[in-house]
């Protein structure tokens, strides 16, 4: 696994090469960079914004692109109401603009196709982004382990990457999805309609006996609930990897 070299951990200027809205509040931004030699699925980048009087804000965003991408990289950003950075990235950043970017970063929450274990992905909301990188990486690989995604969204319109996920299922290469919607479902919905809980996890995850590797990403309380349930279902902690988005429960 390539470890990040010091050069790649410096700030560089990334140019906005493409913009694509995924849902009404979620936007994918593609960047081209002077120096990028690839990344592992699950890694992230830091971005840094500077005002004209020198104030700086930094944030981390997971890479959505498949591992190994060289030419362009993508992040997918959810607009947080009253946020400082996400409204700027999702509403004002335009084609050709540049921002400072550092990465790829992080080797803990990563997956690569050399790993033959069944792959279990569990997420809520914008936590899907690093897991989508894993799925896109898997699609490009020769060896594709059995993979399941359990994906919680507020409603149908807010399912990020919905069409692409449907297409991945249609390739019938051992990938399946269970969706759950927590705030209302369309008329013909045949997915789940509640928050992820122990019963849902027992139903949709690989049994511990199959020794899957589990990746859980989302808001802190979601991740903690899911991780605790997976342990209760018999999965060793060493095969449960977590990435928490959002503050540790507090609101401002």
């Amino acid at each position: 696994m390539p470890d990040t070299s010091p050069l790649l951990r410096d700030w560089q200027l990334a140019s906005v090469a493409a913009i694509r809205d995924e849902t009404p509040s979620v936007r994918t931004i593609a960047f081209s960079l002077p120096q990028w030699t690839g990344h592992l699925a699950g890694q992230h980048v830091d971005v840094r914004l500077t005002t004209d009087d020198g104030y700086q804000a930094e944030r981390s965003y997971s890479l959505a692109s498949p591992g190994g991408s060289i030419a362009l990289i993508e992040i997918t950003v959810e607009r947080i109401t009253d946020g400082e950075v996400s409204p700027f990235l999702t509403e004002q950043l335009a084609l050709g603009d540049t921002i400072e970017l550092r990465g790829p970063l992080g080797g803990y929450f990563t997956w690569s196709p050399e790993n033959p274990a069944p792959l279990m992905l569990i997420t809520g909301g914008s936590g899907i982004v690093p897991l989508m990188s894993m799925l896109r990486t898997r699609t490009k690989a020769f060896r594709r382990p059995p993979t399941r995604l359990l994906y919680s969204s507020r409603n149908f319109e807010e399912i990020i990457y919905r069409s692409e996920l449907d297409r991945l299922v249609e390739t019938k290469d051992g990938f399946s999805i269970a969706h759950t919607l927590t705030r209302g479902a369309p008329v013909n919905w045949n997915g789940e309609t509640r928050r992820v809980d122990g019963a849902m996890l027992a139903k949709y995850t690989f049994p511990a006996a199959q020794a899957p590797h589990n990746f859980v990403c989302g808001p802190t309380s979601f991740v903690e609930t899911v991780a605790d349930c997976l342990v209760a279902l018999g999965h060793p902690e060493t095969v449960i990897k977590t990435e928490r988005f959002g503050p540790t429960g507090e609101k401002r």
Partner: protein
Amino acid sequence: MPITRGFKGKRSNADTALDRIPPGQYVTQDFPVLTAGPTQRTPVENWSLTLQRGGEKLAHWSWEQFEALQQTERTTDIHCVTKWSKFDTRWRGVTIDDLLKAAGLSAPPTQFVMAHCDGGYTTNLLIADLLDGKAMIATHYDNLPIPVTHGGPARLLVPHLYFWKSAKWVRRLEFVDANKPGFWESMGYHIHRDPWCEQRYTGDA
């Protein structure tokens, strides 16, 4: 450093009397929550405040006893070392002067205090920074009980110093003989910490 076109951030010094802002700060209308650990949620029936020296308890108040002490209201600006300032914040609580009086202490037993909080946070203070109305144990912000995320049920308030000294979830004031560093001070934040002298880090003048 490259400027990001169109990025404004969430703060503004426009329309602000510049002599109210210490050097390097910007004014915010928000009240940012910064924390070194999970929010502490001590119910008032389990809450108490203690003054101690060494192993000796000098004074101890339950919540009811504490609320019955002389209350003081104060409107003041606050300054965080992470560069935000907030003007005209309104607090109510018990000044440290009144606390010492209620404890029967005509003079503070030492020159230095370590504040201890639920969750383990600590900060060290000079007694001179706590007396003469400079500091209080605050229980109300904007006329309402301080929310737990902002340090409720009670926090230290020492607004002439950077706000990390206004320790949230304070439970114990320990009089000590030497000025030993607390949680952030031991990481290099300046032992004295005056925003108007811009003393943020050890090594600043």
